[in-house]
């Protein structure tokens, strides 16, 4: 199948609208709703346990147009976080002991204030994690020193590599992405990332290249390590993530007549233990414009924090955020299937 080079928004696709997606997900019932499923297992309402991860989406701009992207990111997306909003995030973090700041996008490095933000965060003693798409490192000479920059600030690098062959990686992420990802991984290894004893963490994210669920994370990690060894690549851990029926992955499912069967797989694989461990319970997600969400998926569906909690970073109130109920919808079945799924992989 041909890879799209434009975002849903640029193509004028109706699924570019968060409300159209929520409407679609809410009106295509596959058995119990997610809320009913939680009720039946005695874990409704799902509540926050605190904030361990402060996840900032610094913008939708990206050098890639991946077919499964839940952000609908791409080169044609211009929404990025301003320095003023980043400052509001820093102000909010100052009075807290939240340990980890997770930077995501788009390609977060494309935000012109990215490096300043990382420097400010690490100066505060925060553990910074960046979701690097790898190819950004090679996209322009101004990014070639990113591995050195990451190393200098002890940033944890988490990178998507959906598969260890070019055919499947390129089918999802675009022509030539696999080859460039391999080169970028080698550059990260060169400065010490993923090497034992270096203290520089390089984790990979696996997500299925189609409408199937991820298998056992440990088994996949073993196979990835074996196969990537042929390119002399080393990494620390593999996180297996399930594709959620949001944005461009939702488009893929609908266009290929796979939506119902995929949802059925998710619903049938519902695991209460995975539901207890979902990442939204200990995460706060901040949008490029400062609005607050339970997770990056809710952010893309414009499902803001519940009304009793603040809805913007300028009104940050950790007490209320810690005591909030999680906003749920049908897409949440993606994080509770099988061994569960989060930005850090399995949850059960």
């Amino acid at each position, binding site marked *: 199948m041909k890879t799209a080079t434009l975002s849903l928004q640029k193509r004028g696709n109706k699924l570019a609208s968060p409300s159209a997606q929520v409407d679609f997900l809410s009106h295509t019932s596959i058995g119990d709703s997610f809320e009913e499923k939680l009720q039946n297992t005695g874990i409704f309402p799902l509540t926050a346990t605190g904030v361990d991860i402060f996840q900032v989406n610094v913008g939708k701009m990206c050098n890639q147009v991946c077919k499964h992207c839940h952000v609908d990111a791409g080169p044609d997306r211009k929404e990025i976080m301003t320095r003023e909003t980043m400052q509001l995030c820093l102000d909010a973090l100052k009075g807290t002991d939240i340990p980890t700041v997770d930077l995501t996008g788009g390609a977060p490095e494309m935000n012109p204030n990215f490096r300043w933000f990382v420097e400010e965060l690490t100066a505060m003693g925060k553990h910074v994690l960046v979701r690097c798409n790898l190819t950004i490192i090679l996209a322009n000479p101004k990014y070639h020193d990113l591995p050195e920059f990451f190393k200098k600030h002890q940033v944890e690098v988490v990178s998507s590599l959906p*598969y*260890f*062959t070019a*055919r*499947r990686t390129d089918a999802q992420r675009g022509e030539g992405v696999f080859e460039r990802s391999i080169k970028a991984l080698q550059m990260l290894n060169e400065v010490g990332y993923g090497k034992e004893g270096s203290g520089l963490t390089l984790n990979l994210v*696996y997500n*299925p290249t*189609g409408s*199937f*669920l*991820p*298998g*056992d994370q440990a*088994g*996949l990690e*073993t*196979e*990835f390590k074996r196969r990537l060894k042929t390119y002399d690549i080393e990494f620390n851990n593999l996180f297996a993530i399930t594709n959620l029926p949001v944005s461009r992955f939702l488009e893929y499912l609908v266009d290929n007549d796979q939506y119902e069967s995929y949802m059925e797989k998710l619903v049938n694989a519902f695991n209460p233990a995975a539901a207890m461990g979902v990442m939204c319970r200990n995460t706060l997600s901040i949008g490029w414009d400062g609005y607050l969400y339970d997770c990056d998926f809710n952010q893309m569906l414009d499902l803001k924090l519940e009304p009793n909690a603040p809805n913007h970073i300028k009104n940050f109130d950790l007490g209320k955020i810690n005591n909030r109920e999680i906003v749920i919808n049908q897409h949440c079945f993606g994080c509770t299937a099988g061994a569960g799924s989060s930005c850090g992989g399995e949850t059960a």
Partner: protein
Amino acid sequence: MAENKSYYNPEDLKKFGKVTEFQEEMGKKFFDYYGSVFKEGALTAREKALIALAVSHTVQCPYCIDAYSSDCLEKGADEEQMMEAVHVAVAIRGGASLVHGTQMMNKVKDLTM
């Protein structure tokens, strides 16, 4: 009941577990055994899925081919591995016919000068 248009219906795969309805004890024993067989052991779960895919082609069971193509993908097998597994089945199946050629040769040699 509506008449089936085919002996094989993809929806029937989802009913596999319901075969216990007509014989619970044996069905349950089968599924317990089945679950044990596919657990990670001396062989990895991925290796077992690839063997199951090959055997599925040998027994030419469309339900099994459907199920184990998905299972191989989920467990991280790539297209080359999956097709090589099918070729292993093909080679054994073809070889099983061909090795009987020795029987034919024996007979021909017995009957001819």
